């Protein structure tokens, strides 16, 4: 499932391209909002980075779930013996990979346009990136199923998704701010714990609830 989704995303899928372009636009626009003589604070730069990632997440998962809608493939998946959990895991892994790929563009863009440098521990930054991204992907794969087939898919998806993502996004912002400034946050361990805990909650919720959302009767 994940391999198929990544192949389709790489071979003309619009979600990844749109996510990267929107994220870059956000970072660029925020860079224009600062006075020319001042730098964006590490905290603000981290917030902009994760905001770009969160918007990208919506576009990526809308694209991934729309792949199953065009020719009724969702019905095909449901009529196959593959468990619904496997669909959730496949979508989650594909979304996770695509999110990482888009962030590989956002991070240098944040360095260039927002005047940031990674002064802290790269290991901590990468661990935080993976931890937060898994939480985003686990919840994105769950709620992408909720919003599919709805007329107001994008808005419904965003409205439900963003409030739930706040804990992991805040964790990512705090840890990234520490890595940008070179002064690790005092509460880094606390935020790392929050990220891991919410990853576990989102993963459990995804595995348990996805079949109910995805098998909705037509």
């Amino acid at each position: 499932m994940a391999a198929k989704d990544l192949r389709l995303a790489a071979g003309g899928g619009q979600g990844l391209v749109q996510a990267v372009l929107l994220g870059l636009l956000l970072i660029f626009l925020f860079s224009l909002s600062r006075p020319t003589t001042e730098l964006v604070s590490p905290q603000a730069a981290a917030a902009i980075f994760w905001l770009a990632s969160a918007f990208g997440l919506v576009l990526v998962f809308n694209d991934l779930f729309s792949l199953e809608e065009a020719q009724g493939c969702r019905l095909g998946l449901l009529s196959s013996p593959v468990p619904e959990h496997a669909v959730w895991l496949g979508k989650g892994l594909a979304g996770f990979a695509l999110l990482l790929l888009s962030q590989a563009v956002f991070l240098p863009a944040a360095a260039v346009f927002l005047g940031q440098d990674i002064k802290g521990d790269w290991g901590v930054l990468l661990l935080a990136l993976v931890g937060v991204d898994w939480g985003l992907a686990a919840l994105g794969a769950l709620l992408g199923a909720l919003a599919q087939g709805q007329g107001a898919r994008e808005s419904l998806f965003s409205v439900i998704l963003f409030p739930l993502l706040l804990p992991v996004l805040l964790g990512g912002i705090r840890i990234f701010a520490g890595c940008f400034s070179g002064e690790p946050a005092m509460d880094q361990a606390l935020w790392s714990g929050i990220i891991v805990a919410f990853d576990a909650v989102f993963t459990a919720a995804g595995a348990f609830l996805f079949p109910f959302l995805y098998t909705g009767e037509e």
Partner: protein
Amino acid sequence: MADADTATGAGTGPEPEGDVRLAVSGVGKFFGSRLVLRDVSVSARAGEALLVVGGNGAGKTTLLKIMAGLCRPSAGTVDLRVAPEASAYLGHATFLYPRLSAQANLLFWGRMYGFAPSQEAIAAVLSRVGLSRVGDEPAGTFSRGMAQRLNLARVFLIGPKLVFLDEPGTGLDPASQDLLRREIIALKASGAAVVWVSHHLNSDLPLAERVLFLKDTRAAYFGPAEGFDAGGLTC
């Protein structure tokens, strides 16, 4: 016209248990407050085709989805007597990813059914449905008829023991419809039970062993195809 009093299995004799691939008992279905199916009991046997007919809105597609596990019944039970990977569903939608080639589509669906089909197996089913020459072309470039042939190839690849067909001939040219009928005969010959929703009663009835006629949300007739009088049925 078939008489409702002769319905629901009268005259079909006791079912040989080993042959029954699907047994539906007392199934009913509400969509909201609207009743679309009421107390339908039917079975499908190995090597036979069960033709499901009825007018528009009679509940044929709903019943097929309930049988295939794609829709929950409001009442009654569905006893599927084959493994999940041994049943296949073919409906109006083609279940194809337009940007994947025909071969890649078959490979993906094979994996979804728990096996990795060999190139030879994929080539064989593509040849069977007359799509050998376009196997590496994106499915999105196919006509409706070619896409439905590829969908049929997906079913053959799975090698099912129970097949659900929902008006599979819709949009097909006469040659493709002939191919479809030949392959339904082949499926039956391989021992598969075929449950088949159709609007083409005159041409499809001779291929069926039994008929379920749905009328006014009920099973108005369930019995041998040979004794089914379709008079007055406008599909």
